[in-house]
């Protein structure tokens, strides 16, 4: 644990009544000043983690540390944490100024001080001059900004964001992604962002925790998680993937779809059964006999930036291709990919084992 750690979960389990736990023995650390994303499907426990940090609920087992102190029983109103809620939870009976000043008034700051801070917070979220607006007269995007201003005005050490962009339309959502990211950089406050939208997570985060049924499946930077998914769930949840069964013949040689391929992974047992992942954008269309794989085009969708082409090889494996080139449905085509595009996943490997193996064979390859 470094000095930079602000929040630490130590084997935290959370269950409601006698139901199976929603969070199973979760441990992780959050460092100061970074943008974190908790990513997972609904019901994976990501919102529970947020509620535990905010103090709306207490862990059933394990400890939560904040700046090195256990805060399991510290009530929400005594924590240096503010939340931006999914439905914004703006007070409908108060106007914009009163909403943002709510926390400051509780702290009994001077009137002039409150006014200055509210103005500054509004400037941060590009809502200058909106002080006297009623909440019901504001659009979804504006409400979103008020909710963010209401959180940052208290100058908390951590801001929790519970799927705050899910109610906005696509264009506004993309815009807010940029703004949030910039805001976090400018303020230097730790952001913990909850979402089920993998694109959002990849675009905004310094670090992503991928959660599934109460457990952290993988954590790492967006590129780590995208390029080196630890298992089928992560590979499938983050972006589109072609996942097929294969076998590791030896280091740097893998067999799938009935052929041998060169790859860059190692550290497996000889002939170990594995799953291999190739991202659709790493597959290039070639003439039938020039490619490494020969497939038949089954269907094709125009996605704007690219065509999404679904093909099948002779073994019946589906291959999804993202290509700017058009294919003809029913044609035989070849698929080319680089050895680096092949990512090999071991069955049932934990994150720790995965990291260890990665380190081991990377050291090995440096010696060569």
């Amino acid at each position, binding site marked *: 644990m470094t000095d930079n750690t602000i929040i630490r979960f130590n084997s935290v389990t959370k269950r409601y009544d006698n139901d199976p736990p929603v969070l199973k023995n979760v441990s992780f650390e959050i460092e100061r000043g970074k943008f974190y994303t908790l990513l997972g499907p609904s019901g994976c426990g990501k919102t529970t983690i947020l509620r535990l940090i905010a103090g709306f609920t207490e862990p059933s087992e394990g400890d939560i540390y904040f700046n090195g102190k256990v805060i399991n029983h510290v009530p929400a109103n005594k924590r240096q944490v503010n939340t931006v809620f999914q439905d914004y939870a703006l007070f409908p009976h108060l106007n914009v100024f009163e909403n943002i000043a709510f926390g400051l008034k*509780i702290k009994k700051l001077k009137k002039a001080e409150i006014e200055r801070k509210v103005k500054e917070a509004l400037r941060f979220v590009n809502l200058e001059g909106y002080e006297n607006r009623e909440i019901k007269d504001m659009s979804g995007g504006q409400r979103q900004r008020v909710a963010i201003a209401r959180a940052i005005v208290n100058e908390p050490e951590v801001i929790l964001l519970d799927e705050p962009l899910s109610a906005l339309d696509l264009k506004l959502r993309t815009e807010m992604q940029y703004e949030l990211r910039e805001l976090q950089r400018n303020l230097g406050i730790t952001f913990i962002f909850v979402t089920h939208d993998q694109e959002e997570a990849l675009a905004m985060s310094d670090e992503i925790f991928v959660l599934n049924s109460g457990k952290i499946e993988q954590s790492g930077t967006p590129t780590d998680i995208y390029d080196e998914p630890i298992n089928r769930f992560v590979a499938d949840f983050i972006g589109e993937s072609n996942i097929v069964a294969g076998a590791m013949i030896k280091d740097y040689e893998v067999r799938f779809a009935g052929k041998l391929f060169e790859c860059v992974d190692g550290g497996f047992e000889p002939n170990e059964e594995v799953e291999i992942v190739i991202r659709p954008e790493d597959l290039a269309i070639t003439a039938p006999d020039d490619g490494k794989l020969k497939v038949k085009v089954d269907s094709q969708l125009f996605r704007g930036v690219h065509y999404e082409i679904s093909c099948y090889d002779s073994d019946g494996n589906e291959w999804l291709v993202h290509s700017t080139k058009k294919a003809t449905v029913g044609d035989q085509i070849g698929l080319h990919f680089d050895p680096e595009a092949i990512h090999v996943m071991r069955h049932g490997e934990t994150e720790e084992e995965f990291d260890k193996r990665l380190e081991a064979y990377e050291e090995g390859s440096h010696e060569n």
Partner: protein
Amino acid sequence: MRTNSRNFYLIPYVLWILLFVVTPLLLVLYYSFFDIEGHFTLENYREFFTPVYLKMTLSSFWYAFLITLFSLLIAYPTAYLLTKTKHKQLWLLLIILPSWINLLLKAYAFLGIFGTYGAANSFLEVMGIGSRQILFTDFSFIFVSVYIFLPFMILPIFNSLDELNPTLLDASNDLGGSSWVTFKRVIFPLTLDGVKAGCQIVFIPALSLFMLTRLIAGNRVITLGTAIEQHFLVTQDWGMGSTIAVFLIIAMVLIMVLTGRRKRGIL
């Protein structure tokens, strides 16, 4: 064609309003301009502003105010606790249930309970306080009235508390608000409409209570409602009775306007 058929559906409603709302109001207004001999006069209105009736008006308002106040003081915490219980609809039903029983029956039941040899006095005996006069006092009148009006106060408050978005409470808590601050700054202002509705439903009928004043308060409390009843049934002075009714209606309209929904809650 469409507007025609829509107008057709309006007929029962319009008939109802005309027969049972507009006509009676006009009749009350009409009768208020006649004296007991059937001559047109403004005497009734002059009469109303004499100390006798003004005092009666004041006492009506005072008792209605007390009844509303105590109902509110009991109903708000009750409604709040109800929203926190597990089977809140069941508990709510249990509280509403007594209001389905005829008012007169309940009043007679209290005659028994509060009577000289009733349950209340037996209890006081056991406690060592000794029996005393409970019936025909201000206390018994207000107690029974509050008991009768309570469900009508609880219901709107319960509904507004139940509709309250629970994340707003989390938000207040998150921003540093203690339970008391959250209540004062978020819960109460946002349930004010329910409180207003409850006060209307209790205060307005309480203004014209008449049966309880006789049965429970033993005619010691004379409200405008009692006066109207006396004029119509005993003295047969329909004119004066109507005049009092006109003032009662004006008072009710004023209260409705004053406690009506505003754009925003208090601040």
